[in-house]
């Protein structure tokens, strides 16, 4: 059979089965869960996550299949022609109920004080099953929360052992610092040697948070520190907003997935009492100028290639732990967040005549790793940390709700000067391939002196794990690659080590889909919502009058007034950094 015939056969192979009396025809290889969904029957799940392989661990989705004495997990069981499935028999209902009761009887499920209250899958299932009493006595083994990490908190007493975090950490991110230990009722999800999260090779990506169905893993809450700063009259509180937050904050506050709410975001931040509202997209443009020149410099001077991007702090910690021998490949550019912080407490402070010590610099990020990044020694200036507090999109959402602001009816406002103007190149930093595309837009024009025929580099866009492209720079073929999700990054790092990655420039983003899928984004974040947010990011890009970083007039002014030239003395002092080897254990 030819490949085409084979594909046709696969496409046409179907199975017809009966689910609760409804006949449904689905492609072969479909699971009972998917087939039921197609038939409009929803089967409750907990350990199932649409982006992770089903493992049949929690047993909540069990169904009766005619001819099988055992109940089978709908999430794993493949359909067969003629199969008869019952998803609502007394036995199935009794089992579901018992499974949920058993989960609720273990640990601490106190909903009102839980970070996932009203966004908890266990809560939703318990509600839908109408559980009002539990015949099982609650057993709590007191286990302290692990608050050691700058980014992530673990609360083992809320864990239901579904293992979604384990799969995410291990299989998607290729990190593997979460796994089950112990057995039987004493089983728990823990870290190597049960160490504190800050003491293991965790990269703070927060994908475990997005994977968790309950409140067992969540972001370190910094809202209190920010409220305090806003309330402190001696502080000038400035805020920057990351590219990916403008396409997710609306979603966090009840608007449709992929809503673009840049102007409302600015208004909300002003409402909250921030003195100045700036845009990280501005320093994303600046990153492109510095990084683009660094790339050209490396190419022309025989520097270490391929050069790897450096704006994703989860990725940076990953390479520091797992591939320290490749650190010379990493661009020395700080991330846009940190370039912003460094400029805020020097250039901006001078410009407006305030003591940098009086500036409290907040950033709104899609990211948990940014919390850690802001605490790195390298990110401290003379007056303390360049960025004082990092809030995730979820934390900002909570603050806006706490304020009682009706986000969707807010008017649109503009960012403040001098860090308010940005280009489409800065905006696409939020999506996988975006940093590379933004860099290409500038590098092409700087290197060739010609205007780009089209600013859109489609081969580097999209959710493919590893993407490649080639750009002709006056006869020189610039080879580039993009990876998102750390397992894909691993693949490229192995290829660099083997000497089979003959690229000049590689963009790595820690999280699947890039920052729009960051660990600080609204829950749920799935491949579906990631794709929607990416679509929105490119819409932001298209809608902007300027789409190339080097055309940003505010950037030009910054160089004229302060930095003088890319890779110059001031840049090296403020915008570039260095990395360190970190141990695996």
């Amino acid at each position, binding site marked *: 059979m030819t490949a085409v015939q084979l594909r046709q056969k696969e496409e046409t192979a179907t199975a017809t089965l009966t689910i609760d009396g409804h006949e449904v025809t689905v492609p072969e290889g479909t699971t009972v869960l998917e087939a039921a969904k197609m038939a409009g029957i929803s089967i409750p799940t907990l350990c199932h996550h649409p982006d992770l392989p089903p*493992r*049949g*661990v*929690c*047993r*909540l989705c*069990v169904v009766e299949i005619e001819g099988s*004495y*055992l*109940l089978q*997990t709908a999430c*794993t*069981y*493949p359909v067969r022609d003629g199969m008869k499935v019952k998803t609502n028999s007394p*036995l199935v209902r*009794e*089992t579901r109920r*018992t*499974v949920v009761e*058993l*989960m609720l*009887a*273990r640990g601490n499920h106190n909903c009102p004080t839980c970070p996932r209250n009203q966004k908890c899958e266990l809560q939703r299932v318990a509600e839908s099953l109408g559980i009002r009493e539990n*015949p*099982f*006595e609650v*057993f709590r083994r007191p286990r302290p929360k692990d608050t050691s990490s700058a980014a992530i908190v673990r609360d083992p007493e809320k864990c*239901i*052992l579904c293992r979604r975090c384990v799969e995410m950490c291990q299989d998607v991110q290729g990190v593997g610092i979460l*796994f*089950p230990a*112990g*057995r*039987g*009722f*004493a*089983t728990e999800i823990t870290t190597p040697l049960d160490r504190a999260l800050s003491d293991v090779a965790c990269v703070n990506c927060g994908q475990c948070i997005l994977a968790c169905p309950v409140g067992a893993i969540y972001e370190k809450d910094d809202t209190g520190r920010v409220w305090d700063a806003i309330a402190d009259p001696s502080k000038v509180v400035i805020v920057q907003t990351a590219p990916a937050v403008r396409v997710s904050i609306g979603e966090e506050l009840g608007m449709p997935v992929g809503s673009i709410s840049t102007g409302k975001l600015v208004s909300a931040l002003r409402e909250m009492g921030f003195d100045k509202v700036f845009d990280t997209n501005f320093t994303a443009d600046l990153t492109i100028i510095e990084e683009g020149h660094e790339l050209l410099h490396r190419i022309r001077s025989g520097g270490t290639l391929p050069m790897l991007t450096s704006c994703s702090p989860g990725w940076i910690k990953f390479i520091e732990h797992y591939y320290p021998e490749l650190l010379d490949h990493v661009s020395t550019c700080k991330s846009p967040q940190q370039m912003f912080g460094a400029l805020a407490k020097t250039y901006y402070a001078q410009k407006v005549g305030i003591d940098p010590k009086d500036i409290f610099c907040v950033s709104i990020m899609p990211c948990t790793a940014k919390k850690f990044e802001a605490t790195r020694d390298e990110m401290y200036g003379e007056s303390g940390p360049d960025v004082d507090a990092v809030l995730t999109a979820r934390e900002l959402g909570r603050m806006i709700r706490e304020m009682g602001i009706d986000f969707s009816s807010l008017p649109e406002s503009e960012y403040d000067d001098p860090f308010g103007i940005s280009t489409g190149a800065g905006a696409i930093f939020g999506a996988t391939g975006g940093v590379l595309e933004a860099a290409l837009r500038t590098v092409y024009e700087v290197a060739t002196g010609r205007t780009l025929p089209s600013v859109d580099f489609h081969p580097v866009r999209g959710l493919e794990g590893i993407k490649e492209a080639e750009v002709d720079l006056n006869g020189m073929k610039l080879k580039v690659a993009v990876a998102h999700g750390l397992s894909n990054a691993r693949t490229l790092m192995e290829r660099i080590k083997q000497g089979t990655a003959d690229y000049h420039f590689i963009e790595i983003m820690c999280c699947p889909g890039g920052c729009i899928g960051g660990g600080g984004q609204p829950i749920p974040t799935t491949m579906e919502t990631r794709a929607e947010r990416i679509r929105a990011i490119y819409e932001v890009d298209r809608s902007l009058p300027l789409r190339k970083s080097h055309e940003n007039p505010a950037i030009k002014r910054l160089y004229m007034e302060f930095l003088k030239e890319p890779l110059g003395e001031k840049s090296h002092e403020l915008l570039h950094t260095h990395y360190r080897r970190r141990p695996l254990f």
Partner: protein
Amino acid sequence: MKNYLKSQRRIVLRNCGQIDPNNIEEYIAAGGYRALERALLEMEPEDVIKTIKDSGLRGRGGAGFPTGLKWELAAKASGHPKFVICNADEGEPGTFKDRLILEGDPHCVIEGMVIAAYAVGASKGYLYIRGEYGQSLQTIANAIQQARAAGFLGNDIVGSGFSFDIAVRSGAGAYVCGEETALMESIEGRRGESRVKPPYPTDHGLWGRPTVINNVETLANIAPIIENGAQWFKQFGTATSPGTKVFTLTGDIMNRGLVEVPMGTTLRTLIYEIGGGIPRGRKFKMAQTGGSSGGCLPASLLDVPLDFDSLRAVDSSLGSGALLIVDDSHCIVDVVRSFMKFFEHESCGKCTPCREGTYRLARLLEKIEAEEATHADLEVLNRLCRVMERSSLCGLGQAAPKPVLTTLKYFKDEYLIHLRDQAASKGA
């Protein structure tokens, strides 16, 4: 003593105690490796499978799946390489039949593995031995070396052109690793936890490749069947459970230890003729067949034939062949509670019903034994058992409630007299 030997029929244990297990020559002199030569030199793999299928041999690890069918599924499955695994992770309390075979007649297991490998087209085998079985490990490692030197393992076995070798792997003490998929996880270097089925090992086994996994006792039956034929084998045992079964007699019985009898021998024969009856003048109360997760049978079922289907019909199982006899000096609730403590300790913790359920069963039984439980607790106990039995991920959680369910069925009174509100029930 006369009955003890007379009623036995030794196929599996044919050489145990008769030959020096450390000397391959003695095994060969007793007819060993003749079946291997016949299979590899005179038979096609399909013929081997057909013979095993015709013999009606069913897996001796507990589930009783037809061995020939298992081999056929693996032989037909696509994917290479294929593997044969011998499951020697004998963790069932009160069972040591595999140990006796491994230490008494290691070559019969190796011979069975080579024949299985030839039949399914496997190139590599693993012998997974319970970690606590130090002597078994030593004996089998020595036997493998001897078999290699003699040309029964390795490249071009007995000049047939077929190559196969065996590596030994040792468990680390988890009971669940006796479950076939957990065992494979363990061989692959991961935490011993069962995998969801389907897919089944014959399609998607070790490292995702087609794999046949057979128990030690099953493999010990292979050479005699190949040598003597399917018809010969079928003369022993029952129509649906041919052959013999090795039982480990433990508990309140005179003759404790291993016996091998034709399938279908009744519980009564085993206990009173071969086992010599109940010691100290006590009365028989309960027999648990199949290990800690087996059903608990009362005196009224003493005439049940011990074979796969007869035992299933009374909610029990043949399991590993453990036979625990309990006399009338024991409280049923206490006995069952001790089983549940075992499962609480051995549940791997992967799926909710087993992980949480084994813990809850143990607590509920403690509560009943302490006379603090009520009828409502008994109802919860019952429901939990039903749920675990039908919805646990693997055999461990599915079978763990069996002792509770069968004693609730056959010895309900013993539960009722422990209840705090028993008076209420009498009134009602």
